[in-house]
């Protein structure tokens, strides 16, 4: 009999649950896994300092977050989307179609992308974008024709680098980091070596196709796409003395006992060099707020303001301590949030 009772009460609970999904009182955030640690640090401090409940922060990637963000307006959609890149026009259009028209764009700071290798491994101390292009390009122009890349060691790419086999671990194509790597390292290297000009000559001036060729990465196993996160890249480098990996600055700073970082174009990555704009491989991080939810979801505006406040996102704040490069124009961002200026 108690079994019947148990079943009945469960059914009752399920029925109540189904009807009581309304009236949300916490801020819901989703998006980039790069922004996740920062957003969770802010959410935690927000919950401690305000009477609002701690915001719910989920990851899933920039694109997935923006997709959920653009599903529409209402309590069953998320309020904030984190992104490690700017929102695309296509996404803005998709948002508008679903009724999400006023979007507030908030830039929280910059994230550096560093090139690191095993601490006791070969002396990878200084890279140029050209080295990476020479080492990783799928095809290179030689005497007026495209030839598959034959570089086997880093010394083949640049005689000053150690003569060890190329084993590069770069982020997979689903990562926002990959895009930055392609544009700021491979494409830059392509230009620097003069390969871009040569490719343009070969294909007859089609700039888009030439850039695509520049950013194509060889697939013969010298370069490995890591679809997981930086922990996986670290594990690969741990087991391969010659490995060189692409990491976020914050991840590197938490693992300085295992990794040594190389300079890029002669500049060592640090929050200072990135903030000054000297270190070339960095990108802005954003979050997007649904203006229609401000005033409806309690604590949303407070959360956004708290995120960009000097105490949090400033140079002495916890985000900077974790590895975020503070935005020198933070005051302007604070004004955008305070005035709820939509894009």
């Amino acid at each position: 009999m108690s079994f019947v009772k148990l079943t009945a009460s469960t059914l009752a609970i399920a029925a109540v649950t189904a009807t009581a999904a309304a009236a949300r009182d916490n801020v819901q955030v989703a998006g980039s896994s790069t922004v996740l640690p920062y957003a969770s640090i802010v959410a935690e401090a927000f919950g401690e300092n305000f009477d609002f409940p701690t915001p719910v922060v989920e990851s899933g990637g920039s694109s997935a977050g923006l997709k959920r963000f653009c599903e529409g307006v209402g309590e069953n959609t998320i309020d904030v989307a984190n992104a490690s890149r700017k929102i695309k026009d296509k996404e803005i259009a998709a948002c508008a179609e679903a009724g999400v028209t006023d979007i507030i764009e908030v830039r929280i700071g910059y994230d550096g992308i560093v090139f690191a290798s095993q601490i006791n491994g070969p002396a990878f101390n200084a890279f140029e974008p050209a080295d990476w292009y020479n080492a990783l390009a799928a095809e290179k122009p030689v005497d007026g024709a495209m030839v598959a890349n034959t570089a086997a060691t880093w010394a083949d790419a640049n005689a000053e680098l150690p003569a060890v086999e190329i084993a590069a671990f770069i982020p997979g194509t689903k990562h926002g980091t990959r895009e930055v790597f392609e544009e700021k390292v491979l494409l830059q290297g392509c230009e620097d070596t003069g390969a871009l000009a040569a490719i343009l000559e070969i294909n007859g001036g089609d700039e888009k196709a030439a850039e695509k060729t520049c950013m194509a990465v060889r697939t013969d196993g010298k370069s490995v796409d890591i679809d997981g996160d930086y922990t996986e890249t670290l594990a690969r480098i741990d087991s391969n003395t010659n490995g060189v990996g692409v990491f976020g600055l914050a991840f590197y700073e938490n693992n300085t006992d295992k990794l040594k970082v190389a300079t890029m174009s002669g500049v060592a990555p640090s929050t200072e060099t990135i903030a000054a704009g000297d270190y070339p491989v960095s990108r802005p991080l954003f979050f997007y707020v649904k203006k229609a939810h401000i005033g409806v979801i309690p604590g949303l505006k407070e959360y956004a303001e708290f995120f960009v406040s000097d105490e949090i996102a400033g140079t002495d704040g916890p985000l900077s301590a974790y590895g975020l490069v503070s935005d020198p124009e933070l005051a302007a961002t604070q004004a955008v949030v305070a005035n709820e200026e939509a894009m």
Partner: protein
Amino acid sequence: MTDATNNTPKAKTSLLTVSPRVKKRNAQEARFKAYGIAAVATGLVFLVILLSTILYNGVGAFQQTFITVPIYLDEAKLDKNGNRDIEEIKKVSTFGYTPLIQDAIFAAIEEKAPGSEITSAKDTKALISASAAAQIRDVVIANPDMIGKSVEFRILAASRVDGYLKGRVTRDSIARDKNIDAKHLDVVDTLRSKGIVKREFNMAFITGADASESRPEQAGIGVSMLGSLFMMLVVLVLSLPIGVAASIYLEEFAPQNKWTDLIEVNISNLAAVPSIVFGILGLAVFIQFAGLPQSAPLVGGLVLTLMTLPTIIISTRASLKSVPPSIRDAALGLGASKMQSVFHHVLPLAMPGILTGTIIGLAQALGETAPLLLIGMVGYIASNYPSGPISGFMDPNSAMPAQIYEWAKRADPAYYERAWGGIIILLVFLITMNIIAIILRRRFERRW
């Protein structure tokens, strides 16, 4: 007659001397035994390696480093107007409390470790967990009359300090770490000898909520344990009645035809389907089609129900089958209806077996991670305790295996230790459930 069959003369054999053939057979048997023992020994060696690795890596998570210091709750900073108005006190954020803690630690350093290289209160930041400010703010808001007094607090030390006491962080490994310097470790050594810095058992790891990446020392598995509990409730209340009803019908009532054969074959097939498949199914059906919330234990429970059902049906049918037909015949012979014979006689006798199967199915579901990856139970920071049963089922939460996976992914090596600690807790749950299943079987199962 014997001559006719025994044409070729044979060497005389004796029972007392061992013939070569017997010798060979005996040797074969000995070899086989040796192989068996070797196989068991290999298994045991791996088990010992596994368990000792888990314990070695994970035990540290159950201890945490604390700093015990008196903190002067300065009225000028916490309650400027001195009227103890709770709303005004609340306006002071955790950033207002941090300097008080730093001053207190600095005072302790100057008193107990004079001559250290730490020369300013701000320099003590590397020693203290960011959670301390919130801890003290909560206490002050609950007891405003503490303001103006000096109160002794036990606060968490930063994860690097904790790592140093546990041997994870060494003087070599921090050489290029910008978060902590050798001078901090010197001070920690001195304060430790004076009993201010101590490594103690950390209950918060078992009961606490997950924390952000900047404070691994605060993270606990408690909230995701609740997530797992709510999921298991869903699995239990759905899969037990459905599974038992299906098996009783199939075993006792259903006619034997090609349809029931087909169903039987497919149930066996379902039991062998990889769990990730159920995850995709859950994503498509429960979240995208039915519109249930992502990361909710309800959805996790539904997906795991699908996974557990075949296990329960198979074990229930096996235990129904093991009830001898004479019991049924006797009941029917005394005039009981088919239904009465099943529910009054067969089912109670099969119950221990059914419960055992259910518990083992639940244990399997508890440790399952793959389907949870797809329904969004990872990549989520489980920092809120559910506020009631409804929020427990519907609000986003993590589950224990998902939480372990999440910790193992994080950048700070301190989280790695917590992942191993989480594994210990998960294993304790699994072993307990399996022991309960064994006890049930031993005590109540009848053999015929």
